[in-house]
């Protein structure tokens, strides 16, 4: 596998769904995880960068899919990170299904995946703020018409942000905005570019593919001969 590979959005959907399943996430959650990764790719990110951390963390038992809900929000077991795969779908279910205006999610392993889930579901008028375990602060705001911004007081990549307690709230409930570098995105414009170029994935792709490969079944002489019905030589 080359250091940089260009893949399609459809390949992201196919591979990441099964990569999630490869670390024992339920298939429905894995489907949403893959859609989130498509959204990241459509916005110019290498989706494997933050997702491999989330998958590694689940695979190594550092993160958990177990989630608890309390009045204030969502959390996982105290000794583990809350997996972003689970956190992202639960956040969406609550803000879309229950019309909540504010939610706290504690100790999420890969916060960008929660952001991506909101983006993939085209939420508008929401913001997500967090401080991660390195002390870096981020604020992501979703405006209308596919416009969104990231403000960060750190030079570290948002994809690598880890171990965050996140506040999800309505955008008009802003309080003081974070001071820092602002990056603006237009998802529609970014996606149009990506459709012309493909999605560049780099060194983390092999690990994603390895998780995906767990869903493949070893071929045997028998299954090779009969599993797909057709013969091995055709002479029509």
């Amino acid at each position, binding site marked *: 596998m080359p250091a940089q590979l260009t893949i399609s959005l459809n*390949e992201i959907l196919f591979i990441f769904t099964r990569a999630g399943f490869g670390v024992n996430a339920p298939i429905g959650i894995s489907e949403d995880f893959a859609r989130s990764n498509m959204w990241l790719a459509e916005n110019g990110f290498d989706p494997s960068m933050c997702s491999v951390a989330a998958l590694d963390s689940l695979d190594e038992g550092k993160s958990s899919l177990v989630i608890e809900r309390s009045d204030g929000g969502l959390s996982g077991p105290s000794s583990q990170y809350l997996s972003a795969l689970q956190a992202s*779908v639960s956040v969406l*279910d609550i803000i879309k299904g229950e019309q909540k205006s504010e939610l706290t999610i504690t100790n999420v392993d890969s916060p960008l995946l929660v952001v991506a889930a909101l983006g993939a579901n085209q939420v508008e008028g929401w913001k997500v703020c967090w401080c991660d375990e390195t002390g870096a602060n981020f604020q992501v705001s979703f405006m209308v018409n596919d416009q969104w911004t990231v403000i960060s007081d750190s030079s570290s990549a948002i994809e690598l942000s880890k171990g965050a307690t996140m506040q999800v709230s309505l955008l008009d409930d802003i309080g003081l905005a974070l001071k820092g570098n602002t990056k603006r995105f237009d998802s529609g414009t970014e996606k149009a570019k990506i459709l012309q170029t493909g999605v560049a994935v780099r060194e983390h792709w092999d690990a994603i593919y390895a998780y995906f490969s767990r869903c493949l*079944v*070893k071929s045997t002489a028998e*299954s090779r001969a009969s599993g*797909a019905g057709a013969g091995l030589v055709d002479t029509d």
Partner: protein
Amino acid sequence: MPFSAKLDEAMMRRPEQVMRLDRMGSSFPTRLSFMRALIRRMSKEQWKFEKLRQDVDENGFGVSVYAAHTPERTYSLVAFTQDIPADMRTDRVIAEVWDATFNLFDGVPTQGDIDYLAKNTPKQEGGRFRPSELSLARANKSLRLFEYIVSSLADGKQPDVDLVASVGYIMRTTAVYGSGKFGCADRAKIADRKECKVSFHMELLAVYLIRWFTIDLVETIAKQRGGSKAAILEPNIRQFIGVGNSTGLGMAPFLLKHPVLIHNWVTAKETALARVRSLETPIQGSLEAFTESIKQVVQHLKEWRVADEIQSARIEKLEAEVGQLTHWCGDEENLIKPYPWNGIYQFAEDNFSLECQEMVVSLVIEPHGALVDDLADAMFSTTVPQFEAGMSLSKLKSIVKDYYAWATSIDFSLHESQYHFWYYSEDKLEPRFGSKGVDDGVDQEMPLAIGRDADDLNEQLKTASNDITVGEFALQYPQFRHIIRRIQNTALRPYAEVQDNLLGEKMRPLDLLRFKLAFFGASKFDPKSDLWTRISMYQGAPMPDQLSYADHDDWAFPIRPKQSV
């Protein structure tokens, strides 16, 4: 249009009737099928076709480029041909070499593009492609026909029509990929183009150009071999030659993973049938056209010969039933009543096999282009099913009860109810159909066990309170998220679901394949087992130089041409 929406709705066949495997496995193409609709578009928009390049040696090995110019843009088929060992010629996904490999290129390729593709296209799944490539395909020669036609033409003779008809194609595609496979363009790149909007139109444009390429290739080799005495194929033989295809299990997961799309396809077809059945009086000339088409079908069936015993018996029965239908239609009393098309359909449904019923569906829709052709434009989808967390659990229970009785009535504790499973092999990701207790891989089963998962959910729902939301339920039971999303979608799109157990011992994946291939417009289904089939595509369709002919759309149920003397 002489139809009323209310009457149409009453005439719609119910999902529980249509979406059953045995009926799906009896499908025939209709005038809404993608190949038919694409040919109509080519003709209406006066697409131009051009051979841009043909650098092949005396055996036809080399590179060729064939272009289709639409009013707004150009698409090019880039074809590579090579010599391969006979013992490596297999139709399976696990093949490593092919006689011919192709890309459909978005635009006209530069020499740099062709150089890139020359290094990748012959490797197929082993190559990497770019958003400039819309489709990736390969084909193998028919060993019975390819060399025979070349030799005949080189000698200045036309090939024997009976032999041509017994095969039907010069080359047989074994995969036609699109929609982002192996780095090719995502569908979203082209979905807004009017010629790409309907499902699979770009893949089927590639196949249409492959058909032209195969015919041109045998004529080119014959010319090199025979010189001035070489002949070219007579137009009626050219038109009768299609492109073969071997279709295996890959199509089955696609059908199950795209429920919105399938709903839209079936809705279009069923609406077309309902519109025709709702006609109180026949449109002028339509009954005569129908009667003529039955005569053609009689000949078509005589020429549809397969080795498969089950399908042979079905064709034999179909021939007898078409004879009875001809007799029934010959009695004027049966056709002068109000709603004659409904009468014909109802007679078939009450008296004939599913195979004949579905053929009648195609036949009664056929003479009604002005009434139904607009429906072909709706055979696509941009909708991704959403998980509706705010839905009450009582509502979800009600949907399961109303739409999934077919699933909850199956006893999945029985071995025969969970006899099979679907999986991807590590061998080039080939989809395979395994048997539990026999094959490895149950733990890596593809999530296609819709009925079983719906039944499991139903059992869990029995213990859950009606007063919570689906989101709250999914928080407790995340393993049901995928099936809940699917079920919620089915309530909105009832033709989305195959209403049968896809794991059962008697389940035949072939039924799913035929259903999908009929929507493509394929004919002459030739099952080779329960898991794969050969078909013909574009048999009888106009060649590029015939698209302007008045009869360019008259190629349903093709029959072989007469041999010239």
